[in-house]
């Protein structure tokens, strides 16, 4: 035991400072509900059911000829790609002269429980591509998919190669059996038929559970201690609240889509074996013959590099590039590293082909 006199008086000071920060927090920072996550100006150019196609207002006088469509993930919302100006994926691409579109999947309700891969790939995504082709008077567009959105985009690129000039896969979910994350372990043991038959759409609560088992002590305790310790740091607090708000808002996933997702990707691993069927057609990765750029985060604990990498080796394209970055799943798209390294490399690659 240590005597009372050996206790560092700074400890009391730290405790008092921390308590003061907790009390002062509501006076210093906005509530997450008061924060708007839409940063870069945009127009909604197409709406189908609950999905909408967003077109960002250009930031440069001249743009590359080929427009870029981003297919965001099915989990959480597209705002992470445009959370704040200095870390915005979208703004960076706009400032590099790209004409950027984003597909917002919206918020499915019980009525949408029968929407499946076919609806997303051959319905919503294809309609968005056709709209952009019309609007831009081009025959092909550049397509980027992120996370689960990259699985949908990969499927699209394989089924509609005639419409895709360049394909960018960012942390794509491809090989479920090689995925070493906690999420894949839960997915492999899930009775997804029973889940969809009983509750319809995959509820957000289940996704929140999956998030809670990812580094639970760092994310559940340490993160919030750091927040209150830095309550005077406006930049830190603003970034923290925006990311937290984004994390706490995930829409349900349509039941049939979720069922096919879990079964075909995680349980039977059909996509990487070229055995997955969408809308009655077999998805053959070899048909992805356009220039392809695959981006992987080495520290990704949501989609492990082993799960994404097989895309690079499985496609039919001769012009393919694989880049690995020393960061995590979100760090790859919304951090200073993404601004300084990931986006400039992507921009160079894409501009040479746009």
């Amino acid at each position, binding site marked *: *035991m*240590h005597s009372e006199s*050996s*206790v*560092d008086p*700074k*400890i009391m000071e*730290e405790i008092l400072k921390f308590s003061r920060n907790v009390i002062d927090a509501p006076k210093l920072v906005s509530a997450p509900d008061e924060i708007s996550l839409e940063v870069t100006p945009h127009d909604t150019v197409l709406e*189908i*059911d609950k999905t909408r196609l967003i077109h960002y207002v250009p930031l440069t006088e001249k743009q590359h000829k080929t427009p870029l469509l981003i297919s965001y993930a099915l989990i959480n919302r597209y705002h992470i790609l445009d959370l704040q100006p200095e870390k915005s994926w979208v703004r960076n691409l706009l400032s590099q002269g790209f004409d950027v579109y984003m597909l917002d999947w919206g918020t499915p309700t*019980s*009525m*949408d*429980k*029968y*929407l499946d891969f*076919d*609806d997303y790939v*051959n*319905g919503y995504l*294809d*309609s968005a591509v*056709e709209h952009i082709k*019309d609007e831009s008077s081009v025959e092909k567009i550049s397509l980027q998919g992120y996370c689960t959105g990259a699985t949908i985009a990969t499927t699209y690129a394989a089924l509609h190669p005639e419409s895709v000039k360049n394909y960018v896969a960012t942390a794509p979910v491809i090989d479920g059996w090689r995925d*070493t994350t*906690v999420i894949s*372990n*839960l997915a*492999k*043991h*899930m*009775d997804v038929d*029973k*889940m969809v038959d*009983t*509750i*319809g759409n995959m509820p957000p609560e289940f996704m929140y559970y999956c998030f809670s*088992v*990812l*580094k*639970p*002590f*760092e994310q559940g*305790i*340490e993160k919030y201690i750091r927040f209150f310790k830095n309550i005077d740091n406006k930049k830190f607090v603003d970034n923290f609240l925006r990311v937290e708000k984004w994390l706490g808002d995930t829409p349900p996933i349509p039941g049939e889509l979720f069922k096919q997702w879990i079964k075909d990707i995680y349980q039977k691993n059909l996509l990487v074996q070229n055995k997955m069927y969408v809308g009655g057609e077999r998805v053959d990765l070899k048909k992805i013959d356009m220039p392809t750029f695959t981006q992987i985060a080495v520290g990704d604990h949501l989609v492990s590099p082993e799960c994404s990498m097989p895309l690079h080796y499985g496609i039919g394209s001769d012009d393919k590039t694989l880049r690995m970055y020393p960061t995590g799943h979100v760090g790859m798209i919304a951090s200073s590293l993404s601004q300084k390294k990931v986006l400039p490399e992507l921009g160079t690659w894409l501009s040479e082909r746009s």
Partner: protein
Amino acid sequence: MQSDSSKNTGDYYKHLSLFWTDIMHLMSSKPQALASTGPMRAFTSNSKKVTTELIEINEDLMGFNEYLTEYYRQLSDAWKDAQKKVNLKAPEVPHDVEQIDSFKRIWIDIFDNDFTELFDSKKFGENYGKLVSKELELTKHWNNITNVVLQSVNLPSKEEIDEVYKELHSLKKRIGKLELELKKKEARNNA
């Protein structure tokens, strides 16, 4: 797993409840038939279904509790082991700010590693899968009971609503595909 004797006892009580529910249902069918077509008539004639569901809920609740107990046992074992590792790595009680920070780092790293190892394990995945499955069984029974109530007031059941959703989805899909085809055809003609 349930032992044989508790399963037998469960089966006996299930049989006993169903027997009396059936008999009561038969005995009351004539007076019921005399009643009009009001909601109570529909509800009482379906009351056997509610009883059956309640009995089955009990069975599933037992299974749910088993997996839930195992779930918390796994979590508490992981906690115990992680704490032992922390004690070995940082045996001294921290007594200044730097030591508290280092202790906190060690504690978080060890706990995150151990818990991730647990969540990654087959035993956790299997038990969690079964736990969710049992929870869904309970939800299903609750849905079935709710359906009885809904039908008694002439409202559509979950299955009937699902049928409408399915039909709507199929129609929208067909229209969407036709529209897209038409658009592509027009574009080809204009080219």
